[in-house]
C-alpha cells in the first residue's frame, strides 16, 4: 500500500468512527441545548441500546454465528430492528427523565449532573446482572462486502453507517427546523419561562428531546454492534466520552457543530493512530480539545448567543 492509500483508508475508518460518535453527540448536545444539563446517563443508554438490539435480534432468531443476509431480507430486517431498538432506547431516555431528572430540574448546582452519573452506574450494573460481564458476539447480518479504491477499501457496513447516519441527522434537522415541535424546542432552549407563557408544554418538550436523543443513541448502538461485531457492558464509557468531547468541540448545544465535532474527532483518532501510535489516541484527542477550548471557549461552531438548538 502506498502512503496515499493508507491515509485514504484511515480517512475512511475515521469517517465511520465519526459517524458513530455523531449519533451519540447529538443526544448530549440536544439535552444541553434545552436544559443546560450534561447528561452522563447517555453513555449508558448507548451501551444498554446494544443489548436491546442484541435481544431483538436474538428474538428474531439471529445469533452470533448466523450467516449474513442479502437483498430484501436484509433491508426488511434493518427496517424492523432499527425502529424497535430506537423506540426502546428512546423509552429508556424518557423513563430516566421522568423518574430521575424531572424531580431535580431547576435545582441549582451539580445535583442534576450527579444524578445522571448515578443513573449511568445503575444501568451498567443492571446490564451486568442480566447479561453478565463477558463480551457478547453481535450477529453479523450485514454481509462482509468491500470495494477497492486502489489498495484501500470501503466496506458495505461503512457505507451503510454513513448513509443511514446522515439520513437520521437530516430527519432530526427537519424536526428541529421545520415542525411545530421543533419550534417549541427552540423556544424552550431560548427562554424556558417565556415559552411557558406562550403556551408551550415544557415537560412534553423536554421529554421528547430525551426521546429523540436516546433514540439516536439507540441507532448508534446498532451501528456499533454491526460494525464491531460485539458488545460488552463497558463500551459506553469510552465511546460516550469521545462523543461528549465531540459535542464540546463543536460547541455544546449546537446540532451541526456536534456532527462536525464528531467527524473531526473520528479523523483525529484514525490519523493520529496512524502517524503517532494508538496508545496516544486519548492524549491527542484531549490535547486538541484543550487547545480549542483555550482559544474558542464556546467550541468551534458555538456562539455566545442564547440561540442554542
Amino acid at each position, binding site marked *: *500500500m502506498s*502512503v496515499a*492509500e*493508507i491515509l485514504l*483508508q*484511515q480517512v475512511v*475508518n*475515521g469517517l465511520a*468512527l465519526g459517524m458513530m460518535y455523531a449519533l451519540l453527540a447529538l443526544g448530549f448536545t440536544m439535552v444541553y441545548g434545552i436544559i443546560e444539563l450534561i447528561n452522563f446517563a447517555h453513555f449508558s443508554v448507548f451501551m444498554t441500546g446494544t443489548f436491546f438490539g442484541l435481544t431483538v435480534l436474538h428474538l428474531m432468531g439471529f445469533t*452470533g*454465528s448466523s450467516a449474513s443476509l442479502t437483498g430484501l431480507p436484509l433491508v426488511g430486517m434493518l427496517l424492523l430492528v432499527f425502529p424497535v431498538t430506537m423506540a426502546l432506547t428512546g423509552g429508556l431516555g424518557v423513563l430516566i427523565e421522568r423518574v430521575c431528572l424531572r424531580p431535580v430540574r431547576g435545582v441549582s448546582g451539580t445535583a442534576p449532573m450527579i444524578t445522571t452519573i448515578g443513573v449511568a452506574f445503575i444501568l*451498567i*450494573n443492571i446490564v*451486568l446482572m442480566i447479561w*453478565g*460481564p*463477558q*463480551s*457478547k*458476539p453481535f450477529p453479523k447480518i450485514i454481509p*462482509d462486502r468491500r470495494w477497492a479504491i486502489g489498495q484501500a477499501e470501503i*466496506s458495505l457496513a461503512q457505507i451503510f453507517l454513513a448513509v443511514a447516519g446522515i439520513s437520521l441527522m437530516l430527519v432530526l434537522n427537519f424536526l428541529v427546523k421545520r415542525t411545530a415541535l421543533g419550534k417549541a424546542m427552540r423556544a424552550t432552549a431560548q427562554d424556558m419561562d417565556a415559552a411557558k407563557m406562550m403556551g408551550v408544554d415544557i415537560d412534553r418538550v423536554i421529554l421528547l428531546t430525551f426521546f429523540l436523543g436516546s433514540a439516536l443513541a439507540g441507532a448508534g448502538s446498532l451501528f*456499533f454492534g454491526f460494525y*464491531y*461485531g*460485539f458488545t*460488552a*457492558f*463497558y*463500551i459506553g*464509557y*469510552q*465511546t460516550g466520552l469521545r462523543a461528549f468531547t465531540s459535542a464540546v468541540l463543536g460547541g455544546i448545544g449546537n446540532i451541526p457543530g456536534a456532527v462536525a465535532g464528531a467527524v473531526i474527532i473520528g479523523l483525529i*483518532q*484514525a490519523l493520529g*493512530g*496512524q502517524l503517532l*501510535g*494508538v*496508545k496516544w*489516541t*486519548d492524549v491527542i484527542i484531549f490535547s486538541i480539545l484543550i487547545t480549542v477550548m483555550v482559544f474558542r471557549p464556546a467550541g468551534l461552531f458555538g456562539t455566545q448567543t442564547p440561540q442554542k438548538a
Partner: protein
Amino acid sequence: MTRRSLIGTLAVLLAVGLLMVLPGGGSAQQKVAKIGMSFPLTGADADSADSIVKGAQLAIDEINQKGGVAGYKLEAVVFDSATPAAGQYDPAQAATNVRKFVSDSQVVALIGPQMSGEGKAISPILSEADMATITPSSTNPDITDPKFQSQYRPKGKAVYFRTVTTDAFQGPNMANHAFHNLKVKKVYILDDGGAFGVGIADSFERRAKELKIEVVGRDRLDPKEADYKTILTKIKGLNPDGLYYGGVQQAAVKLARQLHEVLPKIHKLGSDGIYDLAFPEQSSKEAAEGWWASNASPDVLSDKKAAEWINTYKSKFKREPINYSITAYNGVKVIADAIERTVKANKPVTRSNVRDAIQSANLKNTLQGNIAFDANGDILSKVVSLYQVDKDGKFVYKGVAPEK
C-alpha cells in the same frame, strides 16, 4: 451491666460455645487448613479462571475423600479478583483479597493468581506475611527475579512459586517458532498494557531481534477500546508477515475479529493469554482460526496418562479443562505434600513452615512431570508448548516450542 443481663450474656456465650463443639462429633479432632484462591471469576477471563479454580477444587476434593492430609481437612476459600470497572482482573481487588486471606489465620497457603498483573500487587503482601502462593498460570519473570527482590519480596524468602515456567521462555520460544517453523521475516508487535502483556511482548521482541526478524513496529492496545481498525490499517501498510500479541482476552477477542477483516492471511501469534476456550466463541471461529497460542507448561491434555484425570474432571464439572487446570491441581498437591512433611517433622502447620516445606518440594511423576523449585520459586522444568486454533475453533497441540 446489671446482674441479670450478665447472666444472660454468659448463658448465650455458653450456648454458642456448645454449638461450636457439638456438631463436629467424631471429626471434631480433624483440623482445617484453608487454601485461599483469588481469581478473576467474572469479566473477560472468566472462562479460563473457572477452569483453573475447578482444577484446584478437584485436588482438594480428592484429598479430603481420602481423609485429608496428616489430620488436616483442606478447605478452599475463593474470591473474585475482577471488578466491573476493569471488566477483567483488577490488581487492587487482588491485593484486597489477599489481605483478607492474610487476616484469616487458618489460611496456610494460596493457589494463584492467574494474572501477573495481580501477582505484582500481591507478592509483597505475601512476603510480609511469610505465606506462599503457587501460581498455575502467572508467567511474568520479574516477580521472581532476584533483581527485583526489594520490590516483590522485600523480606527475601521466595513466596511466589510457579507450576508453570516464565515468559523468559514463553515469549522467546514463540519467537523461535515464528523464525524456524513459520519463516516469519517481518513482525509487528502489540501488547495490551497489562503487566503480563507488556512483559511477554518485550521478551518476544528481544528474541525476535536476536534472530534478525525485522520488527516493523510496536504499539499498545487499550483493552477497553472498541476500534482496532486504525492500528490494523497502519500495520497493513507496513506489510509484515507476522503479528505478535502479548496480552489477555479482553483486547484479544476484538483484535482477532478485526484482524480477520483487515489482514486475514498474516501469521497470528499469541501467548497463553489467549489460550481460553471462550476465545474462539467470543471472537468467532473464522477469526480465531490459525491463531497460535503458547502454554508455559508441558502439554498434558493430549497425553494418554491424563485421560483418566480429564474424564474425572469433565464428569464432575461438566466442562473442558485446560492445561492450567492441571497446573492448579498440581499446585494443591504441592501444598498438601508440604503440610504432610511439616507435620511429619513435628513442626506446627504455620504459613511460614508450609512455605519452607514448599521450597523444598520434590514431587515425582505428577501429570506434568517432576515438580521442584529453584531458590526464587520458579519451576525447574522450562517446557513451553504450542497450540493452534483449528477451523472448528479448537486448540490443537502442535509440539514443544523450540528452545533456540
